[in-house]
């Protein structure tokens, strides 16, 4: 009993403090009333529902905002991916290989890991303190610009892997503050345009060869096309089965993995592996999503939950 109570208390922490104080006990007691009739699967779904609703509330997104729901769905996995990239990139991409092979260990190589940490903390802070979003975004952007300006050219130039990290954090930043006035037309066009733009860039810049991949942070770069194709496949399945929100969120998260190999210039880079067919499929998904979002939202159609 105590264990269950602890688990329920953990679930309710997904909600903002103020809401928890006002409604927390009521929600928990309703949950306790309902719990005896639930099976394991239903308990899991109730837990996911609670976390999703708490997150939505923290982000200040109304449940009928389609784009808001998509961004909420993308924000958490986006941050998890960003956290994984932030860990892999400095450890296995920059610092260790550079230190071991190129002997270039020094203050400059620590800048990118530092910047990764700034972005990760920024993403988390955006969720916890959505009202401070502008300040948090300003800190992340300023840190990025300063790093770019201060670092010497050459091996320390802006790595494309960093764009992957920054892009994955975008959903959480966008979701953290969805201005109500933007929640329909403008925001749909903005986000849809970003996704479509990323897909077009990936399609235009990708070269069609698939061997000879190497690079100082090649672990991420080499796996990016495969991650992209996997995400695309999931997204396509979800869209075909009319799970628009989840499918759209995954399509949003797939874009940086496509973008990375396309933007990673250099003779030994990994602008590889994604076939034209895969890019064409993703472009079709992007165009479809943009069309669906804009047409639905342009009609001003709103629904209660």
């Amino acid at each position, binding site marked *: 009993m105590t264990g269950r109570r602890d688990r329920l208390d953990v679930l309710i922490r997904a909600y903002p403090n103020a809401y928890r104080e006002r*409604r927390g*006990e*009521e*929600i928990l*007691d*309703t*949950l*306790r*009333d*309902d719990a005896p009739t639930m099976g394991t699967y*239903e308990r899991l*779904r*109730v837990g996911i*529902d*609670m*976390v*999703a*609703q*708490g997150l*939505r*509330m923290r982000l200040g997104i*109304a*449940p*009928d905002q389609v784009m808001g729901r998509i961004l909420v769905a993308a924000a958490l996995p986006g941050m998890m991916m960003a956290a994984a990239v932030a860990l892999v990139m400095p450890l296995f991409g920059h610092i260790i290989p550079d230190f071991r092979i190129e002997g270039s260990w020094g203050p400059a190589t620590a800048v990118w890991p530092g910047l990764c940490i700034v972005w990760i903390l920024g993403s988390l802070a955006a969720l916890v303190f959505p009202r401070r979003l502008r300040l948090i975004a300003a800190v992340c952007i300023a840190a990025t610009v300063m790093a770019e300006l201060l670092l010497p050219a050459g091996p320390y130039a802006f790595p494309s892997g960093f764009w992957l990290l920054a892009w994955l954090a975008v959903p959480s930043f966008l979701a953290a503050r969805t201005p109500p006035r933007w929640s329909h037309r403008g925001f749909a066009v903005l986000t849809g345009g970003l996704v479509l733009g990323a897909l077009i860039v990936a399609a235009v810049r990708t070269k069609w060869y698939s061997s000879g991949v190497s690079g100082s942070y090649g672990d991420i770069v080499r796996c990016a096309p495969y991650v992209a194709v996997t995400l695309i496949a999931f997204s396509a399945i979800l869209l075909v089965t009319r799970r628009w929100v989840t499918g759209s969120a995954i399509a949003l998260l797939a874009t940086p993995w496509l973008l990375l190999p396309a933007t990673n210039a250099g003779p030994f880079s990994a602008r590889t592996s994604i076939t034209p067919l895969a890019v064409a499929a993703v472009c079709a998904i992007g165009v479809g999503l943009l069309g669906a979002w804009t047409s639905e939202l342009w009609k001003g*159609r*709103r*629904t*209660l*939950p």
Partner: protein
Amino acid sequence: MDEVREPTFLMLVALAEGPRHGYGLIQDVERLSGGKTKLRPGTLYATLDRLSSKGFIEASGEEVVDGRHRRYYRLTSAGTAVLESESKQRLATAAEALRRLGISGTTPRRLAGGLS
């Protein structure tokens, strides 16, 4: 007016009979839908907040039963009007469907009018 989805409609129907607390609403909605709609607490309270912010429902009292806190909700006049309008529309659609299937001789207008 915004479209009213099925769970929201069922909640309004449940509240039409009188004030309900959260768990009571979950049970009533499940019963009304023949077990097809099962509200989860997270969604339930999000919907209650939304309906409350639109002025369709309001809190009507609180009590503690067996150590558990319960807050009751009831329809406002605006909520009653929305439920009536939505019910008439659904009834008219259902009656038209039955008429086209040749199952019922009742006209939608008569059925819908019977509510008011």
